[in-house]
């Protein structure tokens, strides 16, 4: 069943309503691992979006060609190819970023978000629509990564994108850079998102306005 949403909503939905991390809890591994600094989050988000776009282009083009039984193996090989291209590209032209992201770039291959989107969407819709959907999802993913990165960086090392903003009075919360901080921050963010999206709450807002 190919989706019937208008092209605009196809794109917008990825950003908030069906945000990959917040709404459908996909792609958590890199979200937690890399966001100890905002620039890492941004770099990982961009790399993931590149892979998402290129692989959904390829897969939606080949969707009738790949038999159902080998679709997972076939999709994942395509995704892995583009990830390797991205990894080598970063290593060749941006060595510093590649060093800081380190082992997490290859893990984009197994980012549940990408295979999830290909399986649920790109393998059933045309190229144009799949690209829009992937772009929306990618941007949604980048947003969450950068927000999480900023929060953890401010609390963890008192800086944003490496620029120290909090003076010496602020002793950084070491936990924010460590794994537990990542879990806690994401948990609170999801709770905030639930609060914001709660239908009954929107009635109050409407009543109040």
């Amino acid at each position: 069943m190919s989706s019937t949403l208008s092209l605009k909503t196809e794109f917008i939905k990825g950003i908030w309503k069906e945000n990959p991390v917040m709404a459908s809890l996909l792609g958590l591994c890199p979200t937690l691992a890399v966001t100890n600094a905002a620039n890492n989050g941004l770099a990982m988000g961009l790399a993931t979006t590149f892979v998402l776009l290129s692989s959904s282009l390829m897969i939606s083009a080949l969707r009738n060609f790949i038999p159902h039984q080998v679709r997972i193996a076939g999709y994942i090989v395509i995704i892995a190819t583009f990830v390797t291209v991205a990894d080598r590209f970063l290593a060749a032209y941006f060595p510093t970023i590649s060093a800081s992201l380190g082992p997490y770039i290859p893990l984009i291959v197994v980012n549940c978000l990408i295979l999830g989107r290909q399986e649920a969407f790109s393998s059933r819709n045309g190229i144009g629509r799949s690209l829009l959907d992937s772009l929306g999802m990618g941007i949604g993913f980048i947003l969450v990564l950068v927000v999480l990165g900023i929060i953890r960086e401010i609390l963890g090392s008192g800086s944003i994108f490496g620029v120290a903003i909090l003076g010496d009075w602020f002793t950084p919360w070491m936990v924010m850079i460590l794994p537990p901080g990542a879990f806690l921050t994401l948990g609170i963010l999801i709770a905030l998102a639930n609060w914001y999206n709660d239908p009954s709450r929107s009635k109050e807002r409407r009543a109040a306005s």
Partner: protein
Amino acid sequence: MSYFLIFFSAAIVNNFVLSYFLGICPFVGVSKRVSSAVSMGMAVTFVMLITAVVTWLIYHLILIPFDVVILQYVSFILVIASLVQLVEMFIRKVSKPLYDTLGIFLPLITTNCAILGLALFSVLRDYSFLESVVFGLGAGAGFTLALVMMAGIREELELAPVPKYFQGAAITMIVAGGLALAFMGFAGMI
């Protein structure tokens, strides 16, 4: 490093889920009941074991001699995907109930970062054949341990008065944060 050390470090000290963030998607998804968590853990450990063996062979017999190390990610993930599909078909044929309890999370093992992470780490750390097998076992045990503990806690959570907006994924994350804090206590033992 002696084999026990590798096993212990993979299972407890550097637990794949709680300190390397690998395999979070099934960790959040399946861990609602202890029974399905255990079966999921077994399936993942089984796939990890075979992956450790096959990827080591591929790396040392094909990639290095022919100097095509660039194929590392693609060949590893191809192995994992095919293995998982074989396991899925096998389980569906052998025991339908187990297949139903695992449901969607069987194909999701393919995108389980822990397994590819395992293959990459054993290459990164240049383990010998036996070391990488023990490493696979350790990682599987660590994953299952984290999953089962999480499932146990979440079964309690059903009864706990969780505030409205924290229900579901949010509270799971926070509980996982607590678990990760506890596991940090193990750091430095090796």
